[in-house]
């Protein structure tokens, strides 16, 4: 979100839609207010000169961990499918989506 466009109601509704969340009118108003105030708080950082500070991607420094390319046993099919809300054949049932 750029400095010029603080979050508004439309942005809240857009993000809610992308996240497949249903928000009521009252919730949308409350979320807009909350988010605006959170962003306004974080905006204080704009007062600092961070031109020479690299962007932080992780709060904790971790080394790159690599795993050798060796196959390991997978989960048994029955256990995998047990997590499916609807079993179809040996797969996870979903609504039909044809492009």
């Amino acid at each position, binding site marked *: 979100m750029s400095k010029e466009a603080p979050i508004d109601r439309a942005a809240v509704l*857009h*993000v809610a*839609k*992308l996240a*497949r969340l249903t928000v009521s009118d009252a919730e949308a108003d409350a979320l807009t207010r909350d988010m605006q105030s959170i962003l306004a708080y974080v905006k204080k950082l704009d007062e600092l000169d961070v031109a020479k500070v690299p962007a932080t*991607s*992780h709060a904790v*420094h*971790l*080394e*790159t*961990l*690599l*795993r*050798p*390319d*060796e*196959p*390991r046993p*997978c*989960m048994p*099919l029955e256990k*995998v*499918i047990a*997590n499916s809300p*609807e079993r*179809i*054949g*040996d*797969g*996870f*049932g*979903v*609504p*039909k*989506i*044809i*492009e």
Partner: protein
Amino acid sequence: MSNDIEFEPVIGLEVHAQLSTKTKLFCGCSTAFGAPPNTNVCEVCTGMPGVLPVLNAQAVELAVRAGLGLHCTVHERSQWSRKNYFYPDLPKGYQISQYDKPICTGGKLDIEVDGQTMTVGITRIHMEEDAGKNVHDDLVAGARSYVDFNRSSVPLIEIVSEPDIRSSAQAAAYMKAMRQLLRYLGVCDGNMEEGSLRCDANVSVRPKGTEKFGTRAEIKNINSFRFVQQAIDYEIERQSELIRAGGKVVQETRLWDSQAKSTRSMRSKEEAHDYRYFPEPDLPDLVLRDGFVAEVGKRLPELPSDKLTRYTSKLGLSPYDAKILTEDAEVAAFFDAALATHKNTKSIANWVINEVLRELKGNSVESLKFKGDAIGELVKLIDDSTISGKIAKDVLVELMAHGGSPRAIVDSKGWVQVTDTGAIEPIVDQVLAANAESVEKYKAGKTNVIGFLVGLVMKESKGKANPAMVNELLKKKMGG
């Protein structure tokens, strides 16, 4: 806009290549193709709560190899990002990908179109995991679909080209050159039917002679060289017609329908372009250890273009022969192995191109029951006069059927060439006696008739006589 306006297409390709690893990008599940649904899956690649991804070292090596092969800058530090969208084949609700800090940027690939070489710029290469597969099988699922997660989290690289391509033929040539390179590098098996290599095409048109790019459409789901060409041709025509009729191209994702031979809008992707990328919290930045890129560089095999140059300038092969031999990494390796056994470049090239490749009828050299060294051995047997060229063809038939060593085949079949004058002479006499007319012609100065007589002796000896010796004997006996 007037009707006779000519348009020029501007095309960029995004190639998705499956890295040739044994296991997935973030877990130890097998990547083997064709397993029964949901048998190559675990907690990680189905996105169960609480699991953590652990990066596959070999996938990193292969991505670096691709970057070096495409003359990119390989970054010591790159970053994983979450690409968020909802789709049934995406179990976590996001794909782990790379976004603003990809592993490689800024490369190039040389391609050849109609005898002209041109360079296509590579914008970037990033690593990512594949999604699962939605299966629409009415017999099993009726009005619903089911998801098979075997492909979920299989390692991919996406190679994004600059918008340097100006025709569908160039696009197809780019795909072919890319497939060839990735196969040479051992980065990707290039199997388009199995989905190991596929591409999306960004296509726009602009009036010829203008600079500004038109609005582009992204065509998805292209998985053959033929489809690249057809889909792009269709899209160029569609956009040109639209503009001529006074319409406007809208930026959208379109799907290539290979049955209908047309592209159509994918509504579901309309707002999905808002992916809300952010750094992947579960994976630290990918930092390549000191010297790693240089090490991978040392392990890099000879690239197709270098091989082509070596074959023509060092080995003295014709550009045509060199091109056939280098087209496929396996064929080139086969030829190199033959040449390592016996150094007769021209003859071995002829045997590989004219005999082996012809017999293969488009199948892979890997399907052969013998390796390149057998062809080296075979040509050596001809060169040291152990067998004639004709017998060598019989040996090849044996090799194709049963494999084995040419020397052993020749020995066991008793095909060693007869160089004993005493054994050849009676056949020569017999042939001369039966062909008095030809002998007369020869004596009258029509010396080329000797070829016919040599042929008869060779046939009579079942190909085992030494042709040079037969030639000699015939000349002597006819007083030549």
